[in-house]
């Protein structure tokens, strides 16, 4: 990716540590229609290698945060830094380059329904005009990661909800992005399929150390990520049981009416005394 003019050096502002922080939100506010803000002065940071679970009731602005991270929406006020770039001042053209380093899994997968699984997963590589053999190799690698190689020639309409979500993950990780954004990846799925998806997110976190923001309203998904690690030997997740050797960096953020009302670890979330949060997690 060519260097962008508005890339900031970590030394430009001592408060902006872009070496260790993948995403920084500073007092971000956004309104759609009407005067009620969807996000009202939200500030948070996503450290590199960290997974942040964003919780909140429907309409609290969770998905808006992900769209802001990609520049799909522009905030009314505040600054958003993604991988060292102030994306609030970037043009759409500049954002296209930056987006190759950020992958997103949409709530309903958002697969291109006129393309088969291969072409969906390979979309970004084909846009970059990579050689066909290279594209085929990386598509198969990506589909193998989500254990869906057999569905390579199928169309989205022929896939189940869980399979579509897995293809969405394969499409998001094919360029090995530095940041992954998951928008309710287990929404509407049965418990077994949800566990499979969470295991894949965990695998991406623990094997590739990718920073991630995960929006969900399923508290148990967040706690599973915070209390388990992916074991490459058995290719399944295992409870960490507080083992210090397992570097699990999963933190939580709770949104309420456009404001961040909690940010901390799973342990801190369990200790919180705020009545709203206690009711939310109970």
């Amino acid at each position: 990716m060519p260097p962008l003019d508005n890339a900031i050096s970590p030394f430009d502002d001592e408060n902006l540590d872009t070496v260790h922080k993948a995403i920084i939100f500073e007092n971000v506010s956004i309104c759609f229609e009407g005067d009620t803000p969807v996000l009202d002065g939200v500030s948070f940071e996503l450290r590199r290698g960290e997974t942040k679970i964003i919780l909140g009731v429907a309409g609290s602005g969770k998905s808006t945060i992900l769209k802001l991270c990609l520049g799909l929406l522009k905030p009314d006020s505040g600054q958003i830094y993604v991988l060292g770039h102030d994306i609030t001042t970037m043009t759409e053209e500049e954002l296209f380059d930056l987006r190759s380093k950020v992958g997103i899994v949409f709530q309903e997968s958002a697969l291109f329904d006129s393309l088969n699984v291969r072409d969906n997963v390979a979309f970004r590589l084909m846009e970059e005009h990579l050689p066909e053999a290279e594209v085929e190799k990386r598509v198969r690698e990506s589909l193998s990661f989500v254990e869906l190689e057999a569905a390579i020639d199928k169309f989205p309409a022929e896939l189940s909800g869980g399979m579509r979500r897995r293809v969405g993950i394969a499409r998001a990780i094919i360029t090995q992005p530095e940041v992954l954004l998951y928008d309710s990846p287990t929404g509407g799925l049965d418990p077994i399929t949800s566990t499979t998806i969470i295991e894949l997110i965990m695998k991406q976190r623990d094997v590739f150390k990718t920073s991630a923001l995960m929006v969900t309203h399923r508290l148990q998904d967040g706690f599973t990520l915070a209390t388990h690690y992916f074991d490459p030997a058995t290719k399944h997740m295992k409870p960490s049981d507080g083992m210090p050797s397992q570097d699990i960096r999963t933190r939580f953020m709770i949104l309420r009416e456009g404001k961040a009302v909690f940010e901390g670890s799973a342990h801190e979330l369990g200790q919180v005394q705020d009545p709203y949060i206690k009711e939310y997690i109970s």
Partner: protein
Amino acid sequence: MELISPFDFVKRSVLAVQEYAYLSLHSLANIFRKPFYMADTIQQADLIGVGSLPIVVLTGMFTGIVLALNTAKTLESFGSLSMTGRLVSFSMVRELGPVLTSLMVTGRNASGMASELGSMKVTEQIDAMRALGTDPYKKLVTPRVISTVFMMFFLTIISDLVGLVGGWIISFFMLGLDSTQYWNSAYQILHYSDVVTGLIKPVVFGFIIATIGCYFGMTTKGGTQGVGRSTTEAVVWSSVLILAVDAVLTQLLLVLS
């Protein structure tokens, strides 16, 4: 139905015109900016051009037939039946060929574009495309605009020719006119400016069809109901704009010629 204040109505209308102007200008500017989506353009040209051929041929043929039947009745009362070819040719090439072809293509393709892009919009496929680093205006809008403009030019020529053949069928088989006389009079009435007028119009109308179809598709809101609404609005606005621009363009080209 939602009631809105006149101020909000004006604000929304101005915003819609601004967004349409933005999309139209971008679709033109993207013709000269990389990447070029040649395969998508050819695919759209096939869908729009080849796909619309049957309805354009049928419309042209029946228009020519009806023109010959109607004008013959009037001309016969003046003893000028031999001028049937002139009237069919002049009407088809200057006016009816471009306008009726455009209206047919609007019904088939502006609706298709609005529903296809609208479905992509409401299922977040457009957002996914942007998130994957691809400009949807370049990949989806510009190929549709180029191919519609390009194919409308040729579809109108085909429509004009088929309309003349329809007029000839009536003139020869029903009115008993001589073939040579029909084609000679049809050819001689046309001046260079008539042909130019008849070929400038479909290019402008093609641009209206594609940009209106894409605009309503790209601004779709409200799920499947919204897709239906966008499709209807695309056809209505495209048809109205074609007729309104036709009136302006006809006068303008008459003055210029």
